[in-house]
């Protein structure tokens, strides 16, 4: 028989122009269940008007990102046991730095458009020299050859919610978008270079590294932003010395 805990889910509520408030729901849970299971139980048995986003339930779609007890979490892989104790509280709030649509659901439209704009692909080729972050895979060199793989970034937006610079600079591209640009690589792409080498681009980051701390997919956006800076500087130096590296112009010439 599974263990049972009684936990209070304190859910952020906001509909339209109403003032935000919290509703408490005392529910019985198995502590090994996930926070998303608890939110679904609140919706199913207590209040059908609670609005939240979810889809895959296995950390692939990135839809269920929320703030759980103040920290950005992918709720489908966050066990209740990890965030509270028996008789405790699970405070569930929407992601920061996105407009709230209703309750726990936020509008990520602008973010998705920006991800497309920097050329982030859901499938990437990976190179051994690109895997230098603290989360690089272990194993023999032969296992680190170039290969095609699904992108680690699931576009959940947790990094943007945790970033203090995104909080104060609404036009800042943000960690996920810059990490997407790094993965795509500048490679003389004029449009991408202009997009990231500007006031609200790669230079806006102030190294709080909270993006890396909350990322559920080990994308390590902090490292990728710094690597993108190297790419930008390299590209600028190349152009300073007359390097013809404008991919867009080359493509037009063909």
């Amino acid at each position, binding site marked *: 028989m599974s263990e049972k805990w009684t936990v209070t889910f304190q859910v952020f509520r906001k509909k339209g122009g109403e003032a935000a408030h919290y509703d408490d729901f005392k529910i019985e849970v198995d502590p090994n269940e996930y926070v998303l299971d608890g939110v679904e139980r609140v919706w199913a048995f207590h209040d059908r008007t609670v609005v939240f986003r979810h889809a895959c339930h296995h950390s692939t779609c990135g839809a269920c990102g929320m703030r759980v*007890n*103040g*920290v950005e979490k992918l709720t489908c892989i966050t066990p209740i046991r990890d965030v509270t104790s028996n008789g405790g509280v699970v405070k569930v709030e929407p992601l*920061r*730095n*996105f*407009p709230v649509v209703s309750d726990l659901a936020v509008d990520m439209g*602008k*973010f998705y458009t920006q991800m497309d704009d920097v050329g982030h692909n859901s499938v990437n080729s990976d190179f051994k020299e690109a895997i*230098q*972050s*603290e989360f690089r895979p272990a194993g023999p060199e032969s296992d680190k050859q170039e290969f095609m793989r699904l992108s680690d970034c699931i576009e959940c937006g947790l990094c*943007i919610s945790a970033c*203090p610079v*995104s*909080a*104060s600079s*609404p036009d800042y591209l*943000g960690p996920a978008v810059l990490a997407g640009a790094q993965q795509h690589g500048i490679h003389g792409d004029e449009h991408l270079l202009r997009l990231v080498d500007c006031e609200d681009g790669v230079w806006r980051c*102030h*190294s*709080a*590294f*909270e993006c*890396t*701390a909350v990322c559920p997919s080990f994308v390590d956006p*902090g*490292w990728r932003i*710094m*690597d993108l*800076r*190297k790419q930008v*500087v390299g590209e600028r130096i190349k152009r300073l010395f007359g390097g013809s590296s404008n991919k867009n112009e080359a493509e037009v010439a063909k």
Partner: protein
Amino acid sequence: MNEKQSLMTRIIVWFDPRWRSISFWGFIVNRITGLGLTLYLFMHLTMLGNLARGQEAYDGFIHFAHNPIFLVGEVLVVSAGIIHALNGIRIGLNSFGIGLRYQKVLYIGLTALAGIICLYFAYRMFTA
């Protein structure tokens, strides 16, 4: 992305360390010391302005500045400068990919070094 929040609400996030990682503490410390040093610069220039008001005014201020509260203030300014500079070196190195994998260890190490230097300065200033 958050146009509807007030500027104050957005900036408070900079100084809220709850549930955040050690790297974020470094971010907060740099903001506080940076603002403190900027405030000090204004105070310093204002005080130097006393020079233009003649010797008596300047001597009067120097006499006033021997108050122990000013000494504590000077220790805080020196400490802020040291902490901000050392943390700034870490951020500068990290910004170009140097020592990124060790940025947390670097932060702890440089903060400890800053603490030792600050204590030395404080000892020298209070025993001089």
